[in-house]
């Protein structure tokens, strides 16, 4: 592949402090090189009138694994209605909220995304998830292993095995499942539901292990801190979707005592109980707490109106939600002493008080959280909406008139209960580049992604500078993956595959004796069968392992 020189574009690279400077960007051997110092032959792309950014990174999108397959199974009408068109790069799949692997890669790439992370990899299902991620073209990927409801861990904590044993176990799981980070879903709650408990607050004890979500959370926060993972605990907190959960969310922030924590789809955790309907926005309080606690980052999980399907490891919550399934079908599954899943199709309606307020709460969070480096643009695909709605969401953030127009369509009661109309903030292009590129790279610990400095990977996007920001971000003019042009004028023009990312901190192998016994006795098969080998990832290409402090 020859080197590429992108000329005349306005470079927007917040990680390197470049805000619209016109300069060349040169990619050679798949990496960005110093444009002035490079004198070899290049292909030239003229980006006049365009904005040049690094490839976008989605830190939270459910793109693969058993629960994604259940969504496809349940939403067969959507699959039928959305077929990938025939063509040179057709994968013969389809779907929207339930998009198949090939289509997922294509649709993300067309918007300028080049890395997407699956945030709920249940350990028992990790092998499936990796197999599926291999079939997603264009994107670098990785998974966050779901811990905090696994019986082995809860037993370790409740039996007083100590922080060191927990750290060793977490490191073992990261290596065994080839994971990039640790996710907690409803700490202890999914497990408690298996013992028939229906709700679990931050300080309520699990009926069997007699430990609280707070203990599980703080123990795991400590574990990833001590193991030196770049990405903090990625938390789906307690009481998702429950009116009044703003208190839980505030208490969770306080529980961190200053240690790093990423709180995901916070829109679903920012509900108060004010008003006639006992459902109100807690966004202002949550944003205030986020602003005051620099150790906290959030992604929003914005809701958009229309049909989607909610897919979560949180079966406790999803069982509670089963009555609102639309169409009327849902699947739940307890999984392998690890976690669970619950899949509930759902339609967010503009005329529904609750759904419209959810939409407004998401926007309030975006507009009230001040530091763009600590908030990330997500819809919790597909839970709030399909990821294909990102360009619309970007316009809502960047264009107050457009936002007000949409806000005005909501029921009057909703407008009375939301301050969206009063918020004047409009995201700048630079802020969009931060929330979709620079900040995601930073919070995942990537030194060579999310920016356009020398040494970064050659994932580069050119957007035409269209005042209609939705149109601008729907189809990129050019997308380069490791220096290869994969999208031109918004269409896929060649196929490339990304890599899988993981961390693998060292651990005391003494934990393996315990795990061998656990697998033999409790799981009924061998720990060595459970562990994923390097040669299972992308046909033996293996995962890219990122340094952690403990692994020296």
């Amino acid at each position: 592949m020859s080197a590429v020189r992108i000329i005349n574009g306005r470079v927007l690279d917040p990680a390197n402090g470049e805000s619209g400077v016109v300069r060349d960007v040169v990619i050679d051997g798949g990496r960005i090189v110093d444009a002035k110092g490079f004198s070899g032959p290049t292909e030239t792309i003229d980006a006049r009138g365009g904005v040049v950014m690094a490839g976008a990174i989605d830190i939270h999108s459910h793109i693969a694994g058993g629960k994604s397959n259940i969504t496809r199974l349940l939403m067969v009408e959507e699959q039928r209605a959305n077929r990938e068109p025939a063509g040179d790069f057709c994968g013969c799949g389809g779907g929207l909220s339930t998009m198949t692997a090939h289509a997922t890669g294509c649709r993300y790439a067309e918007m300028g995304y080049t890395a997407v992370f699956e945030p709920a990899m249940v350990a028992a299902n990790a092998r499936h998830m990796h197999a599926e991620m291999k079939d997603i073209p264009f994107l670098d990927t990785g998974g966050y292993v779901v811990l905090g409801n696994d019986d082995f861990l809860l037993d370790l904590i409740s039996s007083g095995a100590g922080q060191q044993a927990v750290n060793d176990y977490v490191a073992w799981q990261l290596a065994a499942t080839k994971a990039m980070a640790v996710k907690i879903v409803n700490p202890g709650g999914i497990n408690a539901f298996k013992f028939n408990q229906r709700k679990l607050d931050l300080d309520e004890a699990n009926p069997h292990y007699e430990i609280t979500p707070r203990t599980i959370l703080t123990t795991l926060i400590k574990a990833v801190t001590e193991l030196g993972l770049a990405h903090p605990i990625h938390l789906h907190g307690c009481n998702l979707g429950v009116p009044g959960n703003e208190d839980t969310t505030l208490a969770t922030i306080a529980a961190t005592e200053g240690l790093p924590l990423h709180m995901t789809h916070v829109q679903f955790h920012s509900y108060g109980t004010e008003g006639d309907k006992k459902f109100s926005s807690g966004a202002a309080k949550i944003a205030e707490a986020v602003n005051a606690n620099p150790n906290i980052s959030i992604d929003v999980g914005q809701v958009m109106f229309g049909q989607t399907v909610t897919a979560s490891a949180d079966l406790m919550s999803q069982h509670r939600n089963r009555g609102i399934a639309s169409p009327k079908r849902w699947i739940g599954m307890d999984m392998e002493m690890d976690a669970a899943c619950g899949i509930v199709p759902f339609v967010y309606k503009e005329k529904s008080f609750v759904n419209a307020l959810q939409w407004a709460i998401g926007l309030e969070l975006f507009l009230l959280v001040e530091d763009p480096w600590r908030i990330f643009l997500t819809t919790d695909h597909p839970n709030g909406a399909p990821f294909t709605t990102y360009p619309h969401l970007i316009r809502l953030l960047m264009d107050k008139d457009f936002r007000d127009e949409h806000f005005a369509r909501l029921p009057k009661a909703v407008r009375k209960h939301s301050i969206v109309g009063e918020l004047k903030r409009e995201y700048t292009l630079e802020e969009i580049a931060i929330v979709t590129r620079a900040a995601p790279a930073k919070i995942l610990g990537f030194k060579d992604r999310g920016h356009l400095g020398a040494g970064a990977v050659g994932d580069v996007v050119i957007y035409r500078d269209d005042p209609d920001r939705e149109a601008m971000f729907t189809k990129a003019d050019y997308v380069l993956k490791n220096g290869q042009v994969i999208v031109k004028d918004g269409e896929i023009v060649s196929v490339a595959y990304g890599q899988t990312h993981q961390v693998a901190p060292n651990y005391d192998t003494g934990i393996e004796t315990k795990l061998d016994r656990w697998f033999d006795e409790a799981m009924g098969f061998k720990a060595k069968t459970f562990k994923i080998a390097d040669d299972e990832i992308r046909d033996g290409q293996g995962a890219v392992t990122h340094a952690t402090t403990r692994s020296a």
Partner: protein
Amino acid sequence: MAETTSHDVVCPFCGIGCDDVTLTVDGAAVTAAKGTCGRAAQLFARSGAPAPSARIAGKDVSFEEAVAEAAKRLDASRTIAYAGLGIDVDGVRAVLKLAAKTGGSVDHYASEGMFRNLASSQRKGWVATTFAEVRNRCDLFVVVGPDPSKAYHRVYERVLPATGRFVEGPRRVVFLGGAPTEDAKSQLDGLTVEIIATPEGGLVDALSQLSALVAGSVLPAASPEIKALAESLKAARYGVLAWSAASLDNDGDLVIERAVSVVDTLNVTTRAACLPLSGRDNLTGAYHATLWNIGFPLRVGFRDGVSDHDQTAYATANAVKEADLVVWTSAFRPELPPASAAAVIALSHPDTVFDTEPDVFIPVGQPGLDHQGLAFRADSVVGLPLRRHRDAGLKSVADVVTLISEARA
């Protein structure tokens, strides 16, 4: 060549996913050690005779000639049925890619039971569980219909050891409308086993009653045994209803629907789950890989580069009636292609003895013996890593299909 022994080999055949097989390999000869279940030992065993040659119309040809002939026949065909699909996930990927190019239907030969399950799960949904959950939590295990251990040999040993981590007192196992085999009884030794017989064709009724009873209906006509079972399930902490859909009768979809409804009701007040078993020869992996790549659960059709799903038209039994070419893939065992008027390309287990000689035969390796691969366990969630244990010069289905695809005009 020296004899080598591999321990803790993963068994890919029935879908239970045992990983305690010991294989002894001497050249191409393979023997499974004692302790392996009879069926797996038989399926792993190889005589050591060299693999048969590829054949065109019964005549030995080189591998390359067979590939070229297969490619030619694909190009010349109007309607292709891709069938068998007893292959690893890479094999399924390769077949789907080829089918997308040539057009045609794709189905797994053992998918009938799975589609009975989908009649409930896809339309209404269910609450399901996995082996390790059952093993540790289940205090009342109800086998719905015929004993699944006929197809899933070591299922009870796996999911119902005498004690469970969270089970207080002895576990109870109830066979509803079926009876345990002698082998099943020995696996269940030490557990309380009961049998509730149902009249011929009466399983649907029994489950309808059970469903109504757990939901609080008073059914004076219901048998005392069914009434007692309903009470037991309501009192159980983690009741499980298990079945093998493939061994249910033609009313299997109704049986499953009622069983799902029992579990649905139980979960309002206590915990319960279904354990639907369907997984022979990586059916589960074929289902998953087709869902994530195509968006449908097998029985897919490709035309003009766009895929579609039809559970009737694209079922192998119907597809072969319309097809002028059947592409049969069966790598785990010497399963025979369905009888039809169509020409047959068979990428098959080397020991296959055909009733009717296929037009093109290419022997292929077994995932988990001749090459590495991925299969899925019968409870859907867990992937099984399959390793290579010998070199008998046999290529994987994925490799052969890819070569055929590349050889097309």
